[in-house]
């Protein structure tokens, strides 16, 4: 990582200097994110179905992070607007994996407790509680105006993890690493 050029880069919104130390934090998250390899062909952006909701296009995000200007992005909700369709990861000729970079930035935002969507937190709590993202729901038949449980449809009742205490303990161990 070069530092000699860093003094010239400035985030015009916050007047913060470029900070490349974030790249180390990003690299620690499990994924194939590699912003340094981007040569700005914009193939990721041209195929991005979420581009219309993004204040910054995928290649802009990659480039800003590469240049050490990740702070604003981590604090912004732009990282929570990707559907993870993975077209950018598939098509990038440099194997930058922009979607993995977005996941890494979301992870860092979560570590810092900034901007995490409420519904995602509920999903995490439910997994901790019962092993699934939500409890069994009744299926509704619009035609027959009836609701059904799994059993009523001839399906087995599911129990989830056998030992919930051990399951939670293992999850906590994974979380604290």
């Amino acid at each position, binding site marked *: 990582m070069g530092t000699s050029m860093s003094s010239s880069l400035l985030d015009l919104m916050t007047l913060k200097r470029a900070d490349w130390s974030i790249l180390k934090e990003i690299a620690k998250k499990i994924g194939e994110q590699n912003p340094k390899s981007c040569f700005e062909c914009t193939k990721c952006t041209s195929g991005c*179905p979420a581009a219309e909701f993004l204040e910054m296009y995928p290649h802009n995000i990659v480039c800003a992070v590469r240049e050490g200007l990740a702070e604003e992005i981590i604090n912004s909700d732009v990282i929570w607007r990707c559907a*993870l369709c993975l077209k950018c990861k598939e098509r990038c000729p440099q194997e930058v994996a922009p979607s993995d970079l977005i996941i890494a930035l979301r992870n860092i935002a979560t570590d810092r407790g900034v901007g995490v969507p409420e519904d995602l937190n509920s999903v995490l709590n439910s997994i901790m509680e019962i092993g699934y993202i939500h409890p069994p729901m009744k299926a509704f038949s619009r035609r027959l105006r009836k609701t059904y449980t799994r059993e009523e449809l001839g*399906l087995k009742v599911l129990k989830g993890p056998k030992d919930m205490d051990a399951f939670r303990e293992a999850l906590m161990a994974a979380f604290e690493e």
Partner: protein
Amino acid sequence: MGGFRLGSDGLRYALYLGCMIANEEYAYEMSTREIMRELGVELVDLEGESCCGSPIRSLNTRLWLYLAARNLSLAERTGLDVLCLCSGCFESLLEAKHFLENNEALKKWVNEALSLEGLEYTGRCEVKHLVQVLHDDLGVERLREHVKKELKGLKLASHPGCHLLRPSKVLRADDPEDPRKLDELIEASGAEAIDYPEKLDCCGAGLLLMKPEGTMSFAGTKLKTLAAREVDGLVTVCPACHVVFDKRQGAISRQVGVDKRIPIIYYPQLLGLAFGIEPERLGIHLNSSPVEQILSKI
């Protein structure tokens, strides 16, 4: 490693359901069990399964990896390959396997956490999507042998969905830019699979928990283009895609100003109809979109 296990009773797989099929999209499981019974494929339940981790990968990649690895290690105990019906789970389990295969330290770490649950991950089981099992392991010809009622005259659009295809270097399920397998499976039923330029378009389910108006826009665009075409229905192979297009179609279509409603059907429901299985046993009555239009045409 790899390949299916041939027992005296034919093909066997460990069936991994995942959150959505286990807890809400029951028709997908019902119809899969029905067609597999007809095809002589044995499905072994994965006792103790949990979420694959995919929804919380955005919060913490280690939590994701742990959840994926624990389900893989449960599957390893059966000695069978895993059959995934949900493309989100399929992608999640295979990517986890990919990272664990290429990183010894990560594998050691995950096994330390797994030992708390009395589990161990070795990486020896294969993960397959329903489309692969039907298309590659069984083959279109074998499916055709069981067709009792050709679904002639039906024109259907396939929705392979993102996580069946990408990242292709890890999933290797079909051509990521020109997927054909689901179309060939549709044609095994006697129906016609139309080609359409929006085939690869995403349903937007990945935004449901953070920006649902994004989901509306993604799915709305696709439904709008389908409404403008001569198509009798959209065929799905993922509960997340299905929920968006089927359960939420009314709200989405109203939002984008589309009057026409499109029948959305799970592939095993369609194949089950061609096999002559009673619609109710395939959970057809649980679809919210106007699937009766499909029933009346066959």
